[in-house]
C-alpha cells in the first residue's frame, strides 16, 4: 500500500472556428459627436475577455486610444448577426469583421478631416486619435474636432460595416477531404500525479504546458485562459460527472455537493510557456486559444496514472472507485 508517482504527456491540435455551411460574423462601428467609437456586436463575451480584445483591435485599426472605444455585445436584435461564441472562433471572426468595419470608418473619418484641413486624405496620418498632414506635423487636428465637424457641419456619418466569412467547404467526394477550420493552435501538457493504491485517489501535482497560440492580443488574458483551462481539464479528468453513480441515472446530481468541481485547495502547480506563430488569416495573426487549454491536460493525466500504477482508466472522470476496480482487475489477472 503506497503512493505512486507518475508522469504523462499529451498534445492537441485545436481548430479555430468551424464550418457548418459557412461561418460568418458581422460588426458595425460608428463614431459619436464626442469622437468616441461604438462597436456593435451580437457576439457574446462569456468572461473570456472578448470585449477587451475587440476594443484593442478596433483601437489599433482605427488609430484611436483604447479608452475611446466602447464595445457593445450580446443583443441579437440591435446588432448585426454573429454565429456565436464557440469553437474558439470569436476573436478570430469578430476581430476580422471589426478590422474591416474600422477601415471603412477610418476612411470616412479621414475624408472629413481632409476637407477640414484642405489636404488629400491619403496624405493624412491618424495615430492615437491625433491627425496630421504627412511631412507637416504642425497641420494637425484630432478625432474629436473631425467628429464634431462631420456631425454639425458636413452632415456625414463616420461609420463602418464589417463581415468575416469562412466559406462553406463541402467534402471532396473522391478523397473525403474538406477545409473545416481557419487555423489551428497547438498545445502539449506534461502531468505529474500521485496515485494512492489504497484509496484510489489521484492527486495532480503539476501541469506543465507549452501553448502555440498565434499572436496574443492580450497576453494577460491568454494566461487567464491557460490557467483556467488547466484546472478545468484536471476537473474533467478527475471530478466532473452528472451521473456519479452511473448506471443508476436517478442518482444524478442536484447540487455542488455531488457535482464536484475544484476549489482553491485542489489546484496543482501550473506552469506554462507560450509560443507565437501568427496565423495567416486571423486579425493580427490571432488563433483561438480558449477551449484548447482544457484538452491536453486530460489525456496527460490519464497517461500519468498509467505511468504511476500501470492501469488504463479511459472512462472519465477517473474516480477513486474506477482506479481501485482497475487495480483489482489487474491483480486478479496476474494471480
Amino acid at each position, binding site marked *: 500500500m503506497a503512493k505512486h508517482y507518475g508522469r504523462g504527456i499529451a498534445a492537441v491540435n485545436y481548430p479555430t472556428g468551424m464550418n457548418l455551411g459557412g461561418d460568418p460574423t458581422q460588426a458595425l462601428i460608428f463614431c459619436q459627436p464626442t469622437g468616441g467609437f461604438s462597436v456593435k456586436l451580437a457576439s457574446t463575451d*462569456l*468572461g*473570456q*475577455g472578448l470585449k477587451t480584445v475587440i476594443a484593442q483591435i478596433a483601437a489599433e485599426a482605427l488609430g484611436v486610444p483604447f479608452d475611446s472605444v466602447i464595445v457593445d455585445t450580446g443583443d441579437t436584435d440591435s446588432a448585426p448577426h454573429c454565429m456565436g461564441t464557440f469553437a474558439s472562433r470569436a476573436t478570430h471572426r469578430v476581430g476580422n469583421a471589426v478590422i474591416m468595419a474600422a477601415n471603412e470608418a477610418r476612411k470616412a473619418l479621414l475624408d472629413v478631416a481632409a476637407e477640414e484641413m484642405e489636404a488629400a486624405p491619403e496624405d493624412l496620418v491618424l495615430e492615437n486619435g491625433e491627425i496630421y498632414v504627412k511631412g507637416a506635423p504642425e497641420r494637425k487636428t484630432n478625432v474629436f474636432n473631425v467628429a464634431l465637424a462631420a456631425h454639425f457641419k458636413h452632415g456625414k456619418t463616420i461609420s463602418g460595416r464589417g463581415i468575416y466569412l469562412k466559406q462553406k467547404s463541402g467534402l471532396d467526394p473522391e478523397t473525403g477531404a474538406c477545409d473545416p477550420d481557419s487555423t489551428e493552435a497547438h498545445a502539449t501538457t506534461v502531468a505529474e500525479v500521485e496515485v494512492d493504491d489504497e484509496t484510489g485517489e489521484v492527486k495532480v501535482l503539476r501541469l506543465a504546458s507549452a501553448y502555440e497560440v498565434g499572436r496574443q492580443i492580450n497576453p*494577460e*488574458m491568454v*494566461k*487567464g485562459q491557460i*490557467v*483556467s*483551462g*488547466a*484546472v*478545468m481539464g484536471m476537473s474533467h479528468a478527475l471530478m466532473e460527472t452528472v451521473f456519479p453513480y452511473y448506471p443508476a441515472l436517478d442518482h444524478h446530481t442536484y*447540487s*455542488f*455537493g455531488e457535482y464536484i*468541481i*475544484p*476549489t*482553491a*485547495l485542489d*489546484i496543482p502547480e*501550473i506552469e506554462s510557456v507560450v509560443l507565437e506563430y501568427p496565423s495567416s488569416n486571423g486579425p493580427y495573426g490571432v488563433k483561438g486559444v480558449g477551449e484548447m487549454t482544457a484538452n491536453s491536460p486530460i489525456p496527460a493525466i490519464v497517461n500519468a496514472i498509467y505511468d504511476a500504477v500501470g492501469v488504463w482508466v479511459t472512462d472519465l472522470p477517473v474516480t477513486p472507485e474506477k482506479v481501485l476496480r482497475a487495480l483489482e482487475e489487474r491483480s486478479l489477472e496476474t494471480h
Partner: protein
Amino acid sequence: MESITVTFKLNGKTTAVAIEPLESLRTVLREHLHLHATKAGCGQGGCGSCTVLVNDEPVLSCLMLAALADGQEVTTLEGIGTPPHMHPLQTAFFDRFAAQCGYCSPGMIMAAKALLDKNPHPTRAEIAEALAGNLCRCTGYVAILDAIEDVVTQMQEA
C-alpha cells in the same frame, strides 16, 4: 404571511425593510434593497457567490433568514469600495485579471476581506483554505490567490 420589518446596519447605515418572514438575506439585499453585487448562484450554500459579512463574519446570505439580521451589522461588496475608491482587494483583483465572468468575484472578495481582517498575514495555503467554500468556474483560482497575496504584501510593507 404578514410582512415584518427588520432593521439592521447595512454598509454602515441603519436600514429598515419590510420583508416576508421567510425571505433570505440574499433575496432582501438583491430584490428589496437592489444591491446586486451579492450574487444569486446555487441558493443551496454550495457556491459562495452570495457571501456577505454579518458582524465581520463571512456568511452565505442565501442560507440566512433576513429576519435573523435584525440588529446586526451587514456588509456587502458595495460597502467596502466604489469604482472611484476601490478597496485594495478590488484593485488587486483588477490588476491581476482575477475575474473572467466575475460572478464569483464579490463573494471571493468578501471571504478574503473576512480573512484579512482577522489574519493580516495569511500564507497562500491559509488563503486557499479561507476561499474553499467559494467556487470559481472560470479562473482556475491562481489569479485570485495572487491578487489576495498582493494585498497581504502591501499590508506588510505599509
